[in-house]
C-alpha cells in the first residue's frame, strides 16, 4: 500500500499535469493566448508559448454563448417530382428520335411515368430504346453497383409502358441532393462572414445549421431556406390575365405572380415564356450596390450568359423581360437597347440587407431543393451570459458545501478527498477543452452532479477503512484493505452510471448530449482522482507521519 512503483507515480502525476495544461487556457485571457490579427471567419492563431502548449478553451454550446440552431428538412418530394418530370421529357425525346415511334405525350402518374404507344406493334422497339435510358446507380463514393436507376415494365394492355425510379437510385439522388445543399448552405453562410458555423447532415434528409452569435434566426432561414433560383424570361404582353392570375395561356407560356407591380398600379401577375433566357448559374460576381439612390444587385454574366443575353436583347428591343426569383417576378424592365456589356443590375425594391443577401445567394449558387425549418432553437446573448454566471456560482457553492461536508466527516482524510475533488474538476475542464467537447447548460448541471457524486468513491473507501480499523487492524493495514474491498463496489457503481451517460449520448439531442459528455468524462476522472490519486496521496501521508491511531 505504502509503496508505489516510480513509474506508477510518474503516470499518475503525468496524467494530472497533462490535464492541468489543457485546463489552463480557460483561466488566461484571450489577448494573451491568441494573435489579434486574424482574418474574418478564421479561428485566431495562438502566439508565444501557447503555440506549443494547448491553447483551446472549453467549447461553449449555443445555449451558453448565444446563437441559432436550426434543422432544415430537404423537400425530397419536390426532387422526386422533378426527376419524374425530367424522365417524362427523356422518354418523349427518346421515342421521337428518328425513326420516331409515335405515342401519346408521356405523363407523370403518381410515382410513375406512363406512356401509351399509338401502335402496339412498336412495343418491342420502344422497350429496347427506353432500356438505353437505364443506367447503373452511381453511389456517393463514385462507385457503381448492380442496381439500375429505372424500373421499366409493359402495361397489361400491351400498349403502355410504365417507368419508375428505383429506390436505390432515389437514395443516391437523396444523398447527392443533401450533400449539394450542404455545400451551397456553407458557401452562403461563409459569405456573411460568420465565424465557426456548423453545417452537418442529420439523418437521411436533414441538415443542421448552427450559427454562434446569431440571435435573429429569421435571417438564417431566409439565407438558407431560399432556393435562389434566378432566371430571366421574355414577357408575353398579349395574354389576358384575370385579377386572380387566371388566364388562357398559349403553349410555352406561364403566368407568374409579380407582387412588386402593385406599386405602379399594374396587375400583380404577369405572363412570361416558359423557356429561360438566362439562368442564375450564368451569373458571376454579384454584389449589392447603389444606383440613382436605389439599392440594386449588380452582376456580370459569364461568357455563355453574355452571348445569350446579348443575342436576346438585340432581337427584342422594345419588349420587356422578367427577372424571376423562385417562381416570383421581382422586376420586369423594358429592353431599350441591346445589352452587350456582359453586366447588368436587378432592381426590385431591395433593402441593403436583402440585396446583399440575394447577391450572396447568387454567388453561392441555387439550392437543388427547397429546405423547410423543422426545428429551431435560438438563445440570445444575454441569456447565455446569465446562464454561465448562474452556473459558475452554483458550481462554486456546491463545491464549497461538499468540501465542508467531507472535512466535517473525515478530518484529514477529508483533506485528501478535497484535493482529489479539486484535481477532478480541473481534469474535467482539461478534458472538455482538449477533446473540444461542447459544454452546455445541462452540462454544467452534469458537473455539479459529478461534484456531488465524485466523493462517493472516497466515502466508500473511507467508510471501509474505518470499519476495518475498528475490527482491530493497524492503520496501514486498514487503509490497504479498505481500498481493495471498496474497489468492486466503486467499479460497479460507476459502470452503471456510465451506461446511463452513454445511452444519453447516443440518443443525443444538442444540450442533452452535452450533459452526457460531462457526466461521462466526470465519471472517468472521478474514478481516477478519487481512487488512484487519493490512494497515492494517502500513501505519501502515511509514510511521512506513520500514525499509530486513525483519527476518523
Amino acid at each position, binding site marked *: 500500500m505504502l509503496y508505489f512503483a516510480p513509474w506508477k507515480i510518474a503516470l499518475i502525476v503525468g496524467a494530472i499535469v497533462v490535464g492541468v495544461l489543457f485546463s489552463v487556457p480557460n483561466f488566461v485571457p484571450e489577448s494573451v493566448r491568441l494573435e489579434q490579427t486574424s482574418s474574418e471567419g478564421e479561428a485566431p492563431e495562438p502566439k508565444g508559448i501557447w503555440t506549443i502548449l494547448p491553447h483551446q478553451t472549453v467549447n461553449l454550446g449555443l445555449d451558453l454563448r448565444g446563437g441559432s440552431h436550426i434543422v432544415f*428538412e430537404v423537400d425530397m418530394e419536390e426532387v422526386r417530382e422533378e426527376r419524374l418530370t425530367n424522365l417524362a421529357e427523356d422518354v418523349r425525346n427518346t421515342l421521337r428520335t428518328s425513326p420516331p415511334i409515335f405515342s401519346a405525350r408521356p405523363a407523370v402518374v403518381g410515382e410513375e411515368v406512363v406512356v401509351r404507344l399509338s401502335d402496339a406493334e412498336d412495343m418491342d422497339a420502344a422497350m429496347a430504346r427506353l432500356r438505353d435510358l437505364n443506367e447503373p446507380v452511381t453511389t456517393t463514393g463514385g462507385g457503381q453497383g448492380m442496381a439500375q436507376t429505372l424500373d421499366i415494365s409493359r402495361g397489361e394492355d400491351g400498349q403502355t409502358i410504365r417507368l419508375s425510379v428505383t429506390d436505390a437510385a432515389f437514395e443516391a439522388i437523396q444523398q447527392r441532393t443533401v450533400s449539394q445543399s450542404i455545400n451551397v448552405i456553407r458557401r452562403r453562410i461563409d459569405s456573411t462572414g460568420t465565424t465557426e458555423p456548423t453545417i452537418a447532415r442529420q439523418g437521411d434528409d436533414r441538415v443542421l445549421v448552427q450559427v454562434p452569435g446569431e*440571435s435573429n*434566426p429569421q435571417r438564417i432561414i431566409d439565407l438558407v431556406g431560399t432556393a435562389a433560383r434566378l432566371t430571366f424570361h421574355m414577357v408575353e404582353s398579349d395574354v389576358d390575365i384575370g385579377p386572380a392570375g387566371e388566364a388562357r395561356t398559349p403553349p410555352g407560356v406561364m403566368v407568374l405572380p409579380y407582387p412588386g407591380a402593385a406599386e405602379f398600379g399594374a396587375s400583380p401577375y404577369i405572363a412570361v415564356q416558359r423557356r429561360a433566357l438566362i439562368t442564375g448559374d450564368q451569373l458571376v460576381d454579384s454584389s449589392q450596390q447603389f444606383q440613382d439612390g436605389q439599392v440594386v444587385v449588380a452582376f456580370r454574366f459569364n461568357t455563355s450568359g453574355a452571348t445569350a443575353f446579348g443575342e436576346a436583347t438585340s432581337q427584342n428591343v422594345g419588349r420587356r423581360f422578367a427577372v424571376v426569383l423562385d417562381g416570383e417576378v421581382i422586376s420586369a424592365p423594358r429592353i431599350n437597347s441591346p445589352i452587350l456589356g456582359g453586366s447588368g443590375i436587378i432592381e426590385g425594391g431591395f433593402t441593403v440587407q436583402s440585396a446583399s443577401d440575394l447577391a450572396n445567394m447568387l454567388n453561392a449558387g441555387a439550392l437543388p431543393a427547397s429546405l*423547410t*425549418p*423543422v*426545428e429551431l*432553437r*435560438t*438563445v*440570445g446573448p*444575454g*441569456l447565455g451570459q*446569465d*446562464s454561465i454566471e*448562474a*452556473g459558475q456560482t*452554483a458550481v462554486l457553492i*456546491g463545491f464549497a*458545501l461538499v468540501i465542508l*461536508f467531507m472535512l*466535517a*466527516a473525515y*478530518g484529514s482524510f477529508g483533506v485528501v478527498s478535497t484535493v482529489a475533488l479539486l484535481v477532478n474538476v480541473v481534469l474535467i475542464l482539461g478534458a472538455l477543452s482538449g477533446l473540444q467537447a461542447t459544454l452546455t*447548460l*445541462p452540462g454544467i*448541471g452534469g458537473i*455539479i*452532479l459529478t461534484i*456531488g*457524486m465524485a*466523493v*462517493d468513491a472516497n*466515502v*466508500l473507501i473511507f*467508510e471501509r477503512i474505518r*470499519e476495518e480499523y*475498528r475490527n482491530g487492524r493497524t492503520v496501514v493495514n486498514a487503509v490497504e484493505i479498505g481500498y481493495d*474491498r471498496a474497489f468492486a*463496489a466503486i467499479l*460497479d*457503481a*460507476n459502470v*452503471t*452510471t*456510465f*451506461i*446511463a*451517460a452513454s*445511452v*444519453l449520448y*447516443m*440518443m443525443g*439531442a444538442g*444540450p*442533452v448530449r452535452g*450533459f*452526457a459528455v460531462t*457526466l461521462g468524462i466526470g465519471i472517468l476522472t472521478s474514478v481516477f482522482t478519487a481512487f488512484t490519486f487519493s490512494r497515492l496521496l494517502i500513501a505519501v501521508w502515511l509514510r511521512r507521519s506513520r500514525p499509530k491511531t486513525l*483519527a476518523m
Partner: protein
Amino acid sequence: MKLALVRFIPTESSFDFIRLRWAAFAVSAALMLGSLAAFFVVGLNFGIDFRGGTLIEVQTQEPADLGTIRSTMEEIGISAVNVQSFGSDTEVLITVGTMSPEAVMAMPGVEETGIDEEQAQQVVRSQIQAALSDQFEGIEYRRLEVVGPQVSGELVVAGTTAVIAALFLMLLYIWFRFEWQYSVGAVLALIHDVIATIGFFAVTQLEFNLSTIAAILTIVGYSMNDTVVVYDRIREKFRKFKTLPTEEVLNKAINKTLSRTVLTSGTTLVALIAMALIGGAALQGFALALIWGVVIGTYSSVFVAAPLLTLTGVKRTSDEDEEA
C-alpha cells in the same frame, strides 16, 4: 488542535430495515399507484420538445403585464397560449402548441398561402415576434424555440427508447456481475424510481422536456449506483455468514453501508440544492427532478431493492464455488 468529526450516522447502527419491508412495500405501492393515477388523470405538462410548438422567452425594459401580452396574442389570432413570468417581472415565457396551417393562414396579417404544418409554426413565431416588438420597445428575445410536429414525434420515441435501453443495459450488467435475483431486484427498484419521478412531474406540473429525460436517466444511474453498493455488501456478507438467516444478513449489509449511503446522498443533495437555488430558472426544473430522484433512489436502494432479495430468493449454496 483536535476537531471532533461529525458522525452523521451512529457508528454501529443496527436498524431492522427488513422488518419494515412490508410497511415499505406498502408505501412504495401507494407511491406507484398515486404516480400512475396522477399521470393518467392530471397528465404531464409536456414542453414543446415533445408536443411541438413555439416557445419564446423575452426580457422587457419595464415590468411586463402578462394580461396585456395575452390579449395581444388573442388579437393576432393565437388563443391557446401560455404566458407566464419567468424568473423576474421583466422576463416572460410564452408557449404555444402546434397550430394547424389552416389556423395560421386565418391569422390576421398572415400573407403566406399554401404552407405546410412545419412552415406554419415558423409563421407563428414570426407573427408573435412582430407583435411583441411593436408593443414593447427594446424587447430582447432571450430564447426562441420552434419544434415542428415531426421532430417532436421523433423526440418522444427517442426519449422513451433511451430510458428503456438504459434500464435494459443495466439489467444485463447486474446480471453479469451478480446473479439474476439481484438483477431483477435492481431493475424493479429502478422502475419504481422512474414511475415515482414521472408521478412527481405530474403532481408538480413542472415542464417535462428533453432535460427531464436526461434527469430521469441520471436518476436511474444514481439509484443503480446506490443499489449496487448495497448489493455488493450483501453478497459479501452472504459469503461470510453462511448460516445466518437471510433477513439478518441483509440487515447487517444495509447497516454497514448506511453511513456511506447517507453521506453520498447528502453531498449530492447539497450540490443539487445549490444548483436549484442559484443555477437560474433554466436549471431549476432539472435540479428539482434530480433532488427528488436522489431522495427516492436512496430510499429505494435501502427499502425496496435490498428487501426484494427476500422475495426473489438468492441462492446461497453456490457461494463457495465463486469464492476465488
